[in-house]
């Protein structure tokens, strides 16, 4: 912002602060580290002022005011923790709980529930309610593909309603009836199926809206969390990965439990789309590749890394000396580090290899102007910055590679994190026969698929949440991918796999971590100049290029 915002002096709980004029008291207090409890307020949504949890006292104003709505004024004196405010908070909490079923034991929100947290912080009174609670209609009802509604637990903060009205602008939800009979519900005949519907799960401060997928899978306090980014499209939304590795009997042994959005004003604000949120099944799927396979003439069989890499290296070298090309199908699903090492290994160990790039994958190219991008790869821009896309004239495209393979002009093909055979009819037609004409195929990927089954050597790649690295989003923002847990079986992170392949091909690549690879990349590649792995931080860095 070019113009400076006017600053006002306010006194909060006896300390003077300078805050920008026009901010709400709640935001002003938050900026100086004072948390004012709230349910209905959300910085990404309009202000409802309904929950009344954020009542604070402003000097010279007779009534308590709601901090989420009242803006700061010059010389304002605000009390957020005096006795009157505390009493009001306790009273509001008591009201919230009057008709709340208190079924925390069966509620998935328990552990991250606003009512629980605030009760522990601000409530701690003894219940005076001796009346029967109001029974609301819907209990554990599915209202959309991902969302379960429980009206009894709802505290009617209206966050979900406002979200549907304001962000996807689809308005599926509404508030029905009045008084303590009031409920949040889906409009008749509608379904909460907008592409961002599951955000209401995170918005809901209580357990009224819960994830169908995550429901009953585990308790949130068993989860561990890392900050990472979504790999489902080129937006690369900031997310939190919640995973459970300590209690493997939960959730059929799936390690990755759920993804949640993480605030980043430059990328995704507070939201992520449902495709990204639920698109992690492949990580713990049964068809994950866990060990290197090699098909020495016959069926694919289990082999150690050494043997598989030896075979691959020997055959690739042999192929390079034969008539016909050695080709690589580069994937924009690899992290920057893996792409960089791929580029270096190819240039140094297999010069003359023809590089092809394809951003096609099995996902539908959905897009809108909220978050979703049509390019369903996380790192197309990174590949572009590394001159590995068709923007570089030397790089071939998907169709060209298919033609070459069909003609039988390929002596070897390395497919990385792609599934050309399994692509939709339009793009995938002919690949199966074309691959049969390539004498030697190496497949590097996470899951078994139509292409991997045709490969002579299959090298298992670590999946999302299993390795550290960086990806560059459509806007050129380099962001950190974080490893949540170890790769399944013997799978390796992309950079590590390519490092070992490079060594097997006769090179000497010595990197101990993704950070080391990135730091070298930053030195060698103009686009990434000046960056270092340690400086990227949680919110990422925009690349100048």
């Amino acid at each position: 912002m070019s113009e400076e915002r006017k600053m006002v002096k306010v006194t909060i709980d006896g300390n003077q602060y300078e805050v920008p004029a026009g901010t709400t008291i709640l935001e002003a207090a938050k900026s100086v580290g004072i948390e004012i409890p709230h349910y209905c307020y959300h910085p990404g949504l309009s202000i409802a002022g309904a929950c009344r949890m954020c009542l604070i006292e402003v000097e010279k104003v007779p009534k308590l005011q709601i901090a989420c709505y009242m803006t700061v004024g010059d010389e304002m004196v605000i009390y957020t923790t005096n006795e009157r405010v505390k009493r009001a908070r306790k009273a509001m909490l008591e009201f919230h709980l009057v008709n709340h079923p208190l079924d925390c034991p069966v509620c998935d929100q328990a552990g991250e529930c606003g009512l629980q947290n605030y009760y522990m912080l601000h409530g701690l009174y003894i219940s005076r309610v001796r009346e029967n609670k109001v029974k609301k209609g819907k209990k554990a009802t599915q209202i959309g593909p991902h969302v379960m509604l429980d009206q009894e637990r709802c505290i009617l903060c209206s966050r979900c309603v406002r979200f549907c009205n304001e962000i996807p602008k689809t308005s599926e939800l509404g508030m029905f009836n009045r008084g303590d009979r009031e409920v949040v519900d889906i409009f008749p005949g509608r379904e909460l199926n907008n592409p961002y519907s599951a955000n209401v799960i995170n918005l809901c401060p209580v357990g009224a809206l819960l994830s169908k997928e995550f429901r009953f899978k585990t308790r949130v306090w068993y989860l561990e969390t890392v900050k990472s980014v979504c790999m489902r499209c080129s937006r690369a939304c900031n997310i939190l990965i919640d995973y459970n590795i300590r209690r493997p009997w939960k959730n059929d042994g799936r390690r990755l439990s759920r993804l949640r959005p993480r605030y980043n004003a430059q990328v995704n604000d507070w939201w992520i789309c449902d495709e990204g949120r639920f698109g992690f099944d492949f990580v713990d799927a049964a068809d994950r590749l866990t060990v290197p396979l090699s098909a020495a003439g016959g069926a694919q069989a289990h082999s150690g890394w050494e043997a598989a890499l030896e075979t691959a290296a020997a055959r690739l070298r042999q192929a390079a000396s034969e008539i016909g090309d050695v080709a690589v199908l580069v994937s924009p699903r690899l992290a920057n580090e893996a792409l960089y090492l791929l580029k270096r290994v190819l240039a140094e160990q297999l010069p003359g290899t023809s590089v092809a790039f394809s951003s096609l994958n099995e996902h539908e190219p959905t897009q809108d102007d909220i978050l979703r991008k049509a390019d369903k790869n996380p790192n197309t821009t990174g590949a572009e910055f590394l001159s590995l896309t068709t923007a570089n004239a030397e790089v071939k495209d998907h169709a060209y590679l298919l033609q070459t393979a069909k003609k039988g002009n390929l002596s070897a093909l390395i497919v990385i994190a792609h599934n050309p055979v399994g692509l939709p009819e339009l793009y995938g037609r002919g690949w199966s026969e074309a691959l049969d004409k390539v004498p030697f195929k190496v497949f590097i990927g996470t899951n078994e698929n139509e292409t991997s089954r045709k490969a002579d050597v299959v090298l298992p790649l670590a999946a999302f949440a299993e390795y550290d690295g960086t990806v560059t989003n459509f806007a050129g923002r380099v962001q950190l991918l974080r490893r949540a847990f170890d790769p399944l079986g013997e799978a390796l992170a992309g950079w590590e796999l390519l490092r070992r392949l490079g060594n097997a091909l006769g090179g000497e690549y010595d990197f101990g971590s993704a950070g080391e690879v990135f730091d070298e990349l930053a030195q060698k590649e103009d686009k990434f100049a000046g960056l270092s792995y340690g400086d990227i931080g949680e919110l990422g860095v925009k690349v100048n290029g």
Partner: protein
Amino acid sequence: MAITVKKIDASPKMNLLERTYLREILRGLWITNRHFVVNLTRHILNLFRIKAKPGAVTIQYPEQHRGYHKRLRTAHYLAHRENDDGPRCVGCMMCETICPAKCIYIVPTEHPDPNVEKQAVKFTIDMGRCVYCGFCVEACPEDAIRMDSGRLDICSYSREGMLWDMDRLLANHHDPAPYKDEEKWLDEEF
């Protein structure tokens, strides 16, 4: 201050006869002998159905049961829902969370009855790991897991056998005096 050594002779003063311990040995032998004779007599009398004091204080576990204090923490069991065969357990995992030995393994699922919502589909306690602290009972909001079964015969031929699954925990129940044949055993005790 210099260190001084003070010798304390604490050995009892005994005369020669005492030092042979002969008298004490004989007294000891007499006591044990008396017990032998008296008990043998009682056993024989009892054997011939002549009422006499029991010849031994032994409790014939497991047929005879001493009766435990009601607060004794014995083998776990899962209580049943009222008017229902299912477990009271709603799979909240409070017990699993509090368990210091980490010996409770719960997998929850949807309950077929929409009013109940959640239930445990697998509820396994590794009895070999359990430390009988009773925290699980304290933590349970549904009073579903209890430790007053009165059973202490927790044993198995294998580690796997110590994993008590939900069916077994549900089959167990509160029974303060599970063994009723006390009289019979008194007769046959020797």
